[in-house]
């Protein structure tokens, strides 16, 4: 009974807890009272446009960056540069491939694993397992310079996970890889999670985040904007449906009438396609078709789709270009 209570208390402790974190670069505020709670055992997606503060937040959590105020705890303990016991439980897969070009695939994985598991005998099976996990067995004697982009990414992952960490940070691990490699990487992350690892995943690819993450946090300008599952996030925004209609003869009066409809948030026409963003409603399509029929508009192909995470992201962070 006591054991069950201890276990339950341990799992109740968040893998990562960040409270009121402030980080400034001179006058610029990179993290503005940022909060984050990642539960043990989940895949947590961190989304935000470029410069939103994702990487800064991760680097603060990993005790690489100084910060102005706030609290960071990992598995319930404060994280500092010398928290070696905590560091042993963490793995990192950085955005840029970080391996030694002079070492082979096997030597690279073995070295990074040795930083966590000093004993060769204990390390050897972990290295073998990591090589198999990322499917690099036939390339184990290759040096990184001879690997393709996808294989390099897989090596980068193997170096971060070989020591079987409890908490793994994946910082855009699928940048510049082909769809096959991307699928393999995503499946691998899910397997790691099923084996008990907590994953914090950042990416610009919304479909990936939607596919693998249990919960998603969207941030911008160093602030927490929204948090929830993919469905919860979709329900948070006004957009309930996007309707696209092919037509070549839409008069301005008909477009104006559509814009007047109560459920329409935004409507645009480029001479070939009418695109309408609608609020949630059961008769949106019927009402719109009625307007078009009354105006004698010929309709070609027609689609209606529910909002995606991309819509959520753009609605929350805006459509202005970022660096």
């Amino acid at each position, binding site marked *: 009974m006591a054991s069950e209570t201890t276990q339950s208390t341990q799992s109740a402790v968040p893998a990562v807890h960040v409270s009121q974190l402030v980080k400034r670069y001179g006058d610029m505020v990179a993290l503005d009272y940022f909060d984050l709670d990642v539960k043990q055992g989940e895949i947590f997606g961190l989304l935000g446009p470029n410069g939103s503060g994702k990487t800064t937040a991760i680097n603060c959590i990993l005790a690489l960056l100084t910060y102005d105020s706030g609290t960071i705890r990992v598995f319930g303990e404060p994280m500092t540069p010398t928290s070696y016991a905590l560091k042993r439980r963490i793995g990192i897969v950085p955005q840029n491939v970080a391996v*030694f070009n002079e070492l082979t695939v096997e030597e690279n994985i073995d070295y990074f694993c040795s930083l966590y598991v000093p004993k060769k005998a204990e390390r050897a099976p972990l290295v073998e397992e990591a090589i198999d996990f990322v499917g690099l067995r036939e390339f184990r004697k290759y040096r990184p310079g001879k690997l393709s982009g996808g294989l390099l990414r897989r090596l980068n992952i193997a170096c971060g996970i070989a020591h079987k960490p409890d908490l793994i940070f994946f910082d855009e691990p699928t940048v510049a890889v082909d769809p096959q490699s991307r699928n393999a990487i995503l499946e691998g992350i899910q397997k790691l999670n099923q084996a008990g690892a907590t994953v914090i995943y950042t990416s610009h690819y919304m479909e990936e985040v939607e596919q693998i993450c249990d919960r998603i946090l969207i941030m911008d300008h160093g602030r927490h904007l929204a948090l929830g599952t993919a469905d919860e996030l979709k329900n948070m925004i006004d957009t309930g449906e996007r309707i696209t209609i092919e037509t070549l003869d839409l008069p301005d009066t008909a477009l104006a009438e559509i814009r007047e409809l109560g459920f329409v948030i935004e409507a645009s026409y480029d001479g070939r396609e009418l695109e309408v963003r609608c609020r949630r409603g059961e008769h949106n399509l019927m009402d719109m078709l009625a307007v078009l029929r009354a105006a004698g508009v010929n309709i070609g192909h027609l689609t209606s789709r529910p909002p995606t995470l991309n819509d959520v992201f753009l609605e929350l962070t805006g459509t202005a270009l970022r660096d």
Partner: protein
Amino acid sequence: MWSTFIVSLKSNLRNKSALFWLIIFPIALATMFNGVFGDLDKAMSITPISVAVVEDANWDNAVGASTLVEALSGKKTGGRTDTSSSKTISSDVNIDVKLLDTTNVTSSAQARKKLDTGEVEGYLSADKDGRIALTVSSDTVTKANNGTQEAGLDVSLAALDNVIDQYNRTSATVLTALKDNPNAAMTRTFWNGISTAANGTREISLTNFKPDAMARYYYALMGMSCLIAMSYMIYTVTASQANLSALGIRRTVAPLGRAKQLVAGFLAGWLCTSTCLLIALAYIRYGCGIEVGGREPLAVLAVIVASFMTCSLGTMIGAIPKLTTGVKQGLSTAIACSLSLFSGLYGGFAMELSDLITRKAPFLAIINPAQQVTNLFYSLMYYDSYQPFIRTCAILFVMSAVFLTVGVIMLRRQRYEHL
């Protein structure tokens, strides 16, 4: 820490660019020096000239001529009786340099024939007054004037001419003196005076080892190679710092302290640098024949001390924030090339500049690591005492301490403002 040491070692040894600059480059440059300076050295040395000796009646009358020729031929001579002249010549002429390869002939006609066929480069004959003359062919004169054909022939001819001239003058003096005062031959004072007058120039060494003007270039080359080796530590430091590379981020997040990683990297860099420089030194010493004053074990120690200094300098440069690895590597090459100018690597002008700095602004010479590495080997070669060597080692250790202190100050941050 051990695995970091091994990985750094492997990484260094597989770095083809570094291996080229640290092993191939000094060996290639030393080979080039050897090709250029080797002939220069030969041109300044004395090589034996093949001559025919006309042993006719005149030659028999030339007192001491045979003894002189035997001595110049490298044949050991002692007190002997010159049977030809029926006079006892007291001679202890022993010279280290062989100036002649002789062939005996009985007449000038035979000698001229050998000269025409090229069997000999000249011939020695005596006139009726006992004066020796050297006759050389026009071919020999042409060769002597053209330094590229037979290096050292001109020097040998000049030396031989000088010796013959001295013999003739001494011989004339003796004959004149004896003619005026026949009893003088009976006194020791007379012969001692003649002997003193004939002694000429004797080579003595004031230094630990026979000076080799060209050796300094090779030592300066060691200095340059040593400084180029700082690239090992630049890479090592860059690869372990979170603010300098992605690799550094990954390693900083790991539970092995940064100090341990840096120490392991430093030891690996030191070992690799020492090994590369020892290979270069071995080539210079045994491949090019450049001496280190017969103190090879101390030369090995010199390499180890110099390697420590360059690794410290590399640590400092590697730790400079906000500069890319490429810029730092370029900086290290620029430092090595420019400081080598002041240590005399680039020829006579650079040597003079180096000497000028040492004389007029010794502090600048002291703070030039390339100059100090050059001095390490120089002090082994030329000084009897070990003190100059020890002093240079101490200077290099002080330099290392300064470089390491500055490097550690830059590396001591555990967290960064920016990445």
